[in-house]
Each structure stands twice: as structure tokens, then as C-alpha cells.
């Protein structure tokens, strides 16, 4: 306890610094993956993507980031073995943050695809097992989390496939696809607003002290969906048939109708990404703040302070505005295979899955889910060719990131323990 009263401020400052650095890294790095399908389909420019991401990542982090932050903060580490040595938890959380942030830096510099979620979870398990013991980890929760890592890309793929099939049946396989697209377009836009709102607001937001019954959740979600649909309808109404392009590719004008719709899915994806990944940076920070402010209580009973959420959101925005721009250039070239209809399906499916995971407090990899969603579209025979080797890369990143994060965190943990006692 003396360590906390003696070094409390220093540790707090370190925690804020590391946490901010981590969220900055998340913004710079991860955002490209989240916005990749939207930019790649040519529906929005990189500049527009940055603007959308700035607004909606922050919104997602602040409004919907609470549950996953709770999991990272107190769901993974079992506080019972640490009751008499709360400073160990502080060292551990600091170590995890530092390890994940440094791994992120190394992998990005080398051009390896990295999941910030896997990094932080691997780091937390690493320091806990190495520094304290096997019983320091809540293995039941870890089991749930790992299961979600396997299930979520599959779910994303499934939803994308269903969306793709519905668009084919309702729009493409008809007498007048263009008119059908204009008629059904607003409904699909409604879907974007409705699903994201419903999942996020269902039964209220605990950390924002917003209580909503099931019925109220549906009502608010429907209202938001309708507003969004109205805006969408106005944007779609402006789309004209392009006869020249249609002669070359019969469905060119239909794709043009879906282009403004992708703006909405881009917003949804940014929101979803912010809601799930902000926790990777501020979860450990929240744990440290709680221990220091309570003078050594590890049980983490206090509510999540809002300033931490704001810090997390701001960190992501700064990250994507500074370095994210350059990173997004790597997907800047238009992926011709990714037409707006397919981009819409993949992005909405991914956003829905991530937001669902955020609601249930499960930290997932937005990148892997996005890949799963695109593969889902491919399975509906909607993509010319998908490179299966990417899946291999993802599996490898699992095998490398988890132990790398764990080992780095263990090393830093012992270093900090040595420095501060």
C-alpha cells in the first residue's frame, strides 16, 4: 500500500501516457482496416474516411465502449490473489499497455498485420501467468473471448452472405434493377441505422447511466433508423442513370445507387471499431486509476470515469488524423472487385458483428471480422478472386501476436517490479 501512496502520482502519469500512446497506435493502425472496405470500393475518398472516422470512432468509443472496457479492466484478471499486493496489478496493467503498444509499433514498421485486441489480451494473460500465477487469470472469461475470436468472423461472413443474397433477389434479379435499387435503397439505409442503434442501446447504457427498457430501445432505434433512411433517400434520389456506363456493364447504374449508401456503412463501421478497440487502450488505464484512487482496492467496484473514455476516443482520433492518413493510402487504390453493393454487404455485416461483440463485452478483432465478411460475399460468388493466403497470414498472426504480447508484458512486469519494488 505504501508503494501506492509513495509512487501513486508517477504511476498514474505513466498509465495515462501509455494508455494515450496505445489508443494513438490503434487510431493510426487499425482504422485503415476498419475503413478499408469503404475506401476500397471507391465510395468515399481517404479524406472523407478520416473525417467520418474521427466523428464516429469517438462516438463509438464514448457511447458504446463501456462493456468491452469493463472486460479488459476487470474481466480477465482475477483480483483475489492480488488483494494484499495491489501494486502488482498496477505494474501488470502498465506492462501490458507498454507491451501491446510496442508490439504494435514493431509489427507496423515491419508491415505485419496485427490485431490490437490479440496484443492486449495476450499481454494481460502473459504478465498474469508469469508474474503471479495460473490462478490470476479468469480462464472462463478467456475461453469465452477466444471462442468469440473464432465465431465472430464466421458470423460476419454469414450476415454478409445473407445481405448479398437479399440484394440479388430484390434488386439484381428483376425487370428493372435501377428502379428497384432506388426503391429498396432507403430500406437498406434504414437497416444500417436501425441495427447499430438497436444493438448499442438495447436495455440501456450502463456506464452512461442511461436506462432503457426493451420497448424503448426498439422505439429509439427505429426513430434513428428512420432519420438515417430519410437522409439516405435524399442522397439516392439524386443518382441518375448513366446510359453510357450501362451499355458496358448493365448494372453500372445500380452500383451508383449504392455508392451514397456506403457512406452510412462507413459511419457504422467507424462507430463499431471505436466501440470495441478503445478498450484495448483504456481498459488497463481504467484499472490503474481505480486502484490508485481507492488507495489500493483491487476489486474494481467503481464505475468507469467518463474522462477515461474521452481520453480514449481522443487518442484514436489523433492517431488516425496524424498517421492514419498515410496508412489508409495503402488501400487508397480502388479495389475494382469491391463494388458498392458488395462493399455495403461486407461493411454492414462487419459493423453489426463488432457492435454485437461490444454490447456483450467481448473484445474481438475488427480486422478478422472484416476479412470474414468479405469472404462471405465471395462465397455468394460475388467476388472474382479471393487470395486464400491472407487467411494463412491471419492464423500466423494469432500464433505470433499472442505469445509476443505475453512475453513482452512479462518482461516489462518484472522490470517495473524491480524499479518500484
Amino acid at each position: 500500500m505504501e508503494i501506492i501512496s509513495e509512487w501513486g502520482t508517477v504511476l498514474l502519469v505513466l498509465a495515462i501516457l501509455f494508455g494515450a500512446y496505445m489508443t494513438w497506435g490503434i487510431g493510426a493502425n487499425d482504422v485503415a482496416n476498419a475503413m478499408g472496405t469503404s475506401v476500397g470500393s471507391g465510395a468515399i475518398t481517404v479524406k472523407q474516411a478520416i473525417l467520418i472516422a474521427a466523428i464516429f470512432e469517438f462516438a463509438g468509443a464514448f457511447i458504446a465502449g463501456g462493456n468491452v472496457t469493463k472486460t479488459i479492466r476487470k474481466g480477465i484478471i482475477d483480483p483475489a490473489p492480488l488483494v494484499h499486493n495491489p501494486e502488482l496489478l498496477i505494474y501488470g496493467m502498465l506492462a501490458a499497455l507498454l507491451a501491446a503498444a510496442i508490439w504494435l509499433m514493431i509489427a507496423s514498421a515491419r508491415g505485419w498485420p496485427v490485431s490490437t485486441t490479440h496484443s492486449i489480451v495476450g499481454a494481460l494473460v502473459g504478465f498474469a501467468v508469469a508474474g503471479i500465477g495460473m490462478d490470476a487469470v479468469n480462464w472462463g472469461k478467456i475461453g469465452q473471448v477466444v471462442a468469440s475470436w473464432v465465431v465472430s468472423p464466421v458470423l460476419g461472413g454469414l450476415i454478409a452472405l445473407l445481405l448479398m443474397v437479399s440484394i440479388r433477389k430484390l434488386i439484381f434479379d428483376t425487370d428493372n434493377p435501377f428502379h428497384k435499387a432506388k426503391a429498396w435503397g432507403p430500406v437498406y439505409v434504414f437497416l444500417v441505422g436501425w441495427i447499430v442503434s438497436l444493438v448499442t442501446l438495447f436495455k440501456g447504457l450502463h456506464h452512461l447511466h442511461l436506462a432503457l427498457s426493451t420497448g424503448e430501445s426498439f422505439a429509439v432505434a427505429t426513430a434513428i433508423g428512420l432519420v438515417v433512411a430519410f437522409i439516405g433517400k435524399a442522397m439516392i434520389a439524386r443518382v441518375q442513370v448513366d446510359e453510357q456506363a450501362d451499355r458496358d456493364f448493365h448494372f453500372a447504374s445500380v452500383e451508383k445507387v449504392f455508392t451514397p449508401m456506403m457512406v452510412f456503412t462507413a459511419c457504422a463501421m467507424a462507430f463499431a471499431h471505436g466501440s470495441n478497440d478503445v478498450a484495448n487502450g483504456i481498459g488497463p488505464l481504467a484499472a490503474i486509476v481505480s486502484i490508485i484512487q481507492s488507495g489500493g482496492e483491487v476489486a474494481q467496484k467503481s464505475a468507469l470515469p467518463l474522462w477515461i473514455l474521452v481520453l480514449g476516443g481522443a487518442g484514436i482520433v489523433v492517431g488516425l488524423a496524424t498517421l492514419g492518413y498515410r496508412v489508409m493510402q495503402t488501400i487508397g487504390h480502388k479495389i475494382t472487385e469491391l463494388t458498392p453493393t458488395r462493399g455495403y454487404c461486407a461493411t454492414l455485416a462487419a459493423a453489426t458483428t463488432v457492435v454485437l461483440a461490444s454490447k456483450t463485452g467481448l473484445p474481438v478483432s475488427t480486422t478478422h471480422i472484416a476479412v470474414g465478411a468479405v469472404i462471405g460475399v465471395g462465397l455468394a460468388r460475388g467476388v472474382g478472386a479471393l487470395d486464400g493466403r491472407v487467411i494463412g497470414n491471419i492464423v500466423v498472426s494469432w500464433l505470433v501476436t499472442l505469445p509476443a504480447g505475453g512475453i513482452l508484458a512479462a518482461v516489462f512486469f518484472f522490470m517495473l517490479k524491480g524499479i518500484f519494488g
Partner: protein
Amino acid sequence: MKTTNPIAALFGHSPFKPVQQHMHLVLDCVSEVPRLFDALIAGDEAALTQAKEAIFAKEQTADDLENQLRVHLPRGLFMAVDRRDLLELLEMQDSMADTAQDIAGLLLERRMEVEADMAEPLREFVARCVETARQAGGIVDELDELLETGFRGREASRVEEMANALNQIEDETDRLGMNLARQLFANEDRMKPVSVMFWYQIFQWIGDIADYAEKVGDRLRLMIAR
């Protein structure tokens, strides 16, 4: 800061556009064949050589594109259509250009003389076979629409109808070819025996262009059936 973006890396080189481009090149090549025979019938040496050069050059361009396409089809790619079906389609397309090349080559190596009563039927035969090739080209052009609709529904039915029409035109070319052969055999006593043999070969080759075109249609039927 170098980053591999998994989303960008996920998309492999789509084979559809290159296959359509290849078909356009093949059609370019095959379209020179009527010109070849016009020059032969008119007895215009210069025009004949020109047409032959054009065919050879275009066939080479098509081959280059085909090789490039094969290089970009690694085993790790998941495609909307079976890799083998696509490669066979490419082969059929290539065979059309190769056959045109064979015809042009022979016409220049050996002085072939057209009998007066065979000129018109020959012209018609060649025209019809090239028409078959063009119809096949129209079907290949529908590949990107088929992809958009998942190889099902109205678009698939439309392509099937086009394939049926293609079959009918090819049947016609069979008839025209047989009529031409009949005329050849009616004339055989008048003509040099070796010439008769090579004329028969040329008729085979011209008919082959239409046959391969029909096979192109069949390949696309297979892709839809899947």
C-alpha cells in the same frame, strides 16, 4: 510506415476482365479471316500478305495476354468459378486464334486457287463462322454481369438463351461446310489432287473456328450450372 492491409491483400487478381480482354483480342484476329479470303479470291498478293501479317501479330498478342493470365492464377485463389473451367474457356478462345493462324499460314505457303463456282459459297461459309465467333464473344462479355448476379436468375437464363442461339448458328455452319465439301468433290476431277486435299483441310479449319466458338458457349453453360 509500411503496412500490409489484410483487406487489400485479400483481393486477388480477378481473372474475369483479362478473360474478356483476351476474347476481344481473339475476335480481332478472327475478324481478319474474311479479309484474307477476299484477297485470295481477288488474287491480290499484297492484301493477302497484309491480312496474314495482321493475323499472326494479333494471335501473338492474344498469346501474351493468356500467359500473363495463367501466371496470375495461383492455387491459393478462391474464385467464383472453378479454375479448371476458366482455363478451359481460355484454351477454347485461344484455339480460335490458333486456327486462324493455321489458315493464314497455309494460304501463304501454298498458292491456292479458288474455283469460280466455289467463291461465293466460300465467302458465305467464312462469314458465318466468324459470326459464330462474334456470338461467342457476346456471351463472354456477359461474364461480369453473371458475376454481379451470382451466376443465377435472369442473367443466367439470358446467357443460356445466347448459348442456344450460338448452337443454332454453328449448326448452320456445319451445313454450309458440308455443301462446300460436296462442291469440292464434284470438282475434284478438274482440280489437282493435292489442291483438293488442302482445300478440304482449309474447310475443316474454317469450320473449327465455329466449333471452338460453340465450345466457348458450352464452357459458360457449365459455369452457370454449378
